[in-house]
């Protein structure tokens, strides 16, 4: 399953890069860094959320949503806002 999730994420990232080029948009190095950390954390959360249910550890599964899932969304939202506000000023 994770093979297909990897392909899906790769396709989404590639699509995102193509979309940026198509729109002639550029991200700064720190926006890339924060976004990448957020994405890795999101994938990590998904794996552990699903893995914890496989282990019949439902509390652990929901704790992953809180402890790593929430920060991952905050980081991705931060990247989006940083880029959006910078581009809107330009």
């Amino acid at each position, binding site marked *: 399953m994770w093979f297909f999730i990897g392909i899906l994420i790769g396709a989404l990232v590639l699509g995102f890069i193509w979309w940026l080029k198509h729109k002639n948009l550029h991200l700064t190095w720190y926006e890339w860094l924060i976004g990448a950390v957020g994405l890795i954390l999101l994938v990590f959360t998904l*794996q552990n959320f699903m893995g914890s249910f496989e282990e019949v550890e439902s509390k652990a599964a929901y704790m992953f949503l809180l402890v790593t899932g929430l920060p991952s969304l905050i980081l991705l939202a931060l990247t989006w806002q940083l880029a959006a506000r910078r581009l809107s000023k330009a």
Partner: protein
Amino acid sequence: MSKFHSMVSRRDFMKGLGMAGAGIGAVAASAPVFHDIDELIASDTAVQPRPWWVKERPIDDPTIEVDFDMMERHDGRNQGQSARVRAMYYGADRVLGAAALSAAELAERTASNYPGYTYRSRALAGSFKRVSPGTAPGWAETKDPAPVKTPEERGEPKWTGTPEEASRMLRAAMRAYGASLVGYTELTQEHRDHVIFSYEKGDSNNEKYIGTDVPVTAARPIVFENVAKAYETTEKLVIPNVPLWEIALSTQGSNELWRSSGTLLGGFANSNTFYNCGNLHASTYNFLRYLGYQLIGTIGNDARYVGSEGGAAIMAGLGEASRQKLYTLTPEYGAPGRLYGVLTDLPLEPTHPIDAGIYRFCHSCQKCADHCPPQVISKEKEPSWDIPLTEGKETIFSVKGTKAFYNNLPLCRQYSNETSHGCRICWGECTFTVNRGSLVHQIIKGTVANVSLFNTYFYKLGEAFGYGADAEKAETWWDLSLPTLGQDSTITAADGGYGK
């Protein structure tokens, strides 16, 4: 020109295809192909693989410090399970009254339909049967009524090979008979003088020995003699003064059952580890006998242990010492499972003690101690060479000569006997008793093996995330689809596509 136009020419493509074909061919040509068992045992892939974070240490130098000069051959009659030993610290009345307390709790929990005490739970735990394979194994398996023929009896020479070949062969055979982790130590003179028990446990745990001396007919001395073969009489167990090696092995446990500890299913978790011991012992004994070698001691019967099975497992690198002391933690399984140590005169290649950061982790973690109902597990920050007194009296049940955490093992067993479930909550609570579904376990184990800075944080994290034992798990267990015996035997599989 489209920006999506391929920059690879047809010629380059075909060249690449050729290179890929050559690469695949080279891999196929170099891949191991075994034509018979002799080729298999000579292959490196037959060696027991360990997780990448497990580091080897020098022989006789495990992560728990050992001083053989301090260590004396321990008397197997003096252990915490013994009614006689428990009575020394807590009195005969309390020891003999345990069964009544256990029965009362069983009745109360049954009446209230407590989780893990439902009709089906009582049926499951109460129906466990350990059927002996036709005989009660003896010290040197002299009681087997129909053993395989020795090479001498068959008229062919005994098997010979290098210690490395013998080690791989025996590990492969024992794995097929039901063992999981297998390691070896050489029985040096130091081990003979300090590690081998001076007495077997025998029948010394029996309540009839409370307040008396245990006669040698009930628990025999273990002695070394200048003979070629091990033997036993009604008054002694004999180890021959010949080169010997100790085989340390583990059998598995079911994590889900252990995490139901504190209920009847948790009690069954312990029984569940015994299912194949008799077969494993008989088959290993006969395998060695077929090759022309002997097996001394018994797999699956702690009445005739040759020494501390946890100690053998640590020295052979199966696992590391723990705060709880009763269990040895392995990188693969954590606490669940069972350990055994037996001797053989088949020359074997010793395996190294390991460092996976586990014992160091136990210095910071005290999850087992926090959850121990009778509070018998040490909460000291650091281990010690000095064995503390127990109830103001000399502690006679702990082996001297290791820098360890010392626990009140008689009270551990006394409390267990006073419950209807046998406790064992620490096994289910241990931070290392985890499955493999979540990636985080591998990351944490890999980190713990290399950095101790986060150990306390990981211990607290395990608590916060809800890992551990819970009575409610005894009821949800019935709806799970688990592996045979509830045990994940693929953990140690490196070949065949079984390992994850």
